[in-house]
């Protein structure tokens, strides 16, 4: 093998150079991408500290002249932000929990319990996702009235308790669990519920974490349905609807700085949730199988 005075084979040196160049390119791409991704988020935080005059400029400023921390103090003075937090946490939290439960139960059954008609029923579940959300607005509102739920949390929770997306996701996950593992438990006399709770659920942790994150974020940010329900029942008002009450009709930019501060209030819990679940996420995924979906 040809070597030079350093003793490193020439061929390997060429490979090392190639590798370094590729790594540099990789980081350039990743970092450029990251900057593009985070720019609006960064602007959100930055602009929430500006005055409404700064915000009315033709080109958005990137930094406030003087950070208006007062905006964050002003928002709770105008709207009961704590109440909104409470309502959003309760409704989105419980609904997410229900989604996790129903998705894992159903997902497991569709994947591993060979019951009659399961193919057909699963396709039915898939098809429920294909109906535009619009179709459910008025009938569900009518149902809420009939059930007497218009004035309590139920109307904000129950219509979202089951998610076809969640069932699909968990099912795909569960299918990668080796049958032998479950069959040996069955032979030992374990019932399906025991298998579900003792074997399947622990393995599903990372999938559940992902589902929890995406479901919670969707519910936390939902606007239309909570608006319809809570504008008549202001005690139930959730965060997005509450923040929208800071915007004054046709006065375009009057409260823009407050609206942005309100939006930061809205965004922070999701960031916290994501960071919290991140840790679960990586460790867990490596252990379990998202493998052959």
């Amino acid at each position, binding site marked *: 093998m040809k070597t030079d005075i350093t003793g490193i084979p020439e061929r390997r040196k060429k490979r090392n150079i190639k590798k370094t160049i590729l790594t540099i390119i990789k980081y350039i791409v990743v970092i450029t991408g990251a900057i593009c*991704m985070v720019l609006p*988020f960064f602007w959100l935080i930055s602009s929430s500290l500006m005055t409404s005059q700064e915000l009315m400029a033709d080109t958005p400023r990137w930094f406030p002249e003087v950070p208006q921390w007062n905006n964050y103090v002003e928002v709770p003075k105008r709207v009961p932000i704590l109440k909104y937090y409470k309502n959003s946490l309760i409704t989105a939290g419980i609904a997410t929990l229900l989604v996790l439960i129903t998705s894992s*139960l159903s997902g497991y059954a569709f994947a591993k319990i060979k019951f009659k008609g399961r193919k057909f029923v699963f396709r039915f579940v*898939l098809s429920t996702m*294909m109906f535009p959300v*619009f179709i459910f607005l008025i009938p569900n509102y009518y149902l809420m009235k009939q059930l007497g739920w218009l004035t309590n949390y139920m109307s904000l929770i129950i219509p979202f308790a089951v998610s076809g997306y969640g069932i699909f996701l968990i099912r795909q996950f569960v299918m990668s669990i080796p049958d032998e593992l479950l069959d040996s438990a069955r032979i030992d006399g374990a019932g399906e519920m025991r298998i579900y709770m003792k074997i399947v659920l622990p393995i599903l942790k990372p999938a559940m974490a992902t589902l929890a994150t995406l479901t919670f974020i969707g519910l936390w940010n939902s606007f239309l349905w909570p608006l319809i329900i809570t504008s008549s029942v202001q005690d139930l008002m959730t965060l997005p609807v509450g923040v929208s009450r800071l915007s004054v009709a046709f006065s375009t930019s009057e409260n823009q700085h407050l609206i942005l501060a309100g939006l930061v209030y809205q965004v922070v819990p999701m960031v916290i949730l994501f960071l919290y679940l991140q840790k679960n996420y990586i460790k867990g995924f490596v252990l*379990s199988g998202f493998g052959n979906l």
Partner: protein
Amino acid sequence: MRKGLRKRNLVGYGFIAPALIFYAVFFGFPVVFSLLVSTRRWNMLVPFEEARFYGFRHFEYLLKNELFMRALLNTCLYAIITVFVTISLSLIFATLINKSKFSVLWRFLYFTPIVTPPVAIGTIWNYLYKPNNGVFNHILGSVGIDPVYWLTDPNTVLFAVMITAIWGGIGSSMLIFTAGIQNIPQAYYDAAKIDGAGPFRQFWNITIPMLKPTILFLTATGMIGAWQVFDLPFIMGKNAPAKSIMTVSGYVYESAFQSMRMGRASAGAFILFIVIFIVTIFILRAFRKGGMSGYED
């Protein structure tokens, strides 16, 4: 053995019972109700019982209406392009980030569009798309291309919204891809390296095939979601001619809440459902032919 079968059926249905009950009430009733509404003329102000019967004329009207058909076309283009590009880019970024330093930081940054509210997204992207000294036109100008009127030119507005949508959709797909990638045994890659395969080869021959099930899931759910798009075109398309940016959901929404034509809106929603249904079946069939197991049993 037959007892075992019956028990299995019982248990199986027991597990899915909560979901089925839910669907019976919160899916069955709305769908049947909406089907009925789509055969009537109803402005939501009179009781439903008084709504006049109209047969299937709403469907006829829509399929002959230029704006609705353009909406279908726009939505179709939007769905195909955004889903394809989003999934491709998410996969590439997920792969790149997976083995990088500070991967948690990158993952967080790539995730921020998901939690950024449309107001912030709209403002920044409006700024980027400004014709006069906007960022994108500035870049185009430096390579000698004429300025583009991104959000007001009917030929570019849909495309501009798509770019924003792709940007916003990468985060969640990346989340799911990352999990999938981390489950590919390192042994496969090591073996490939020994055989002399470079990173591109490894990506093409190991990563992608192993991720086919994930790709199927994301494509199917992505399509279903993309066909129902409403927010971004609605927010960003206000200043362009309607035909170039109208989406099916936008049309349905307007029919219902501005024109107060609930019957027509419901009919439009059903047409959308049928389209999504056909498209999804098509996707699933295509994946099955591609030798992908794991969807069906």
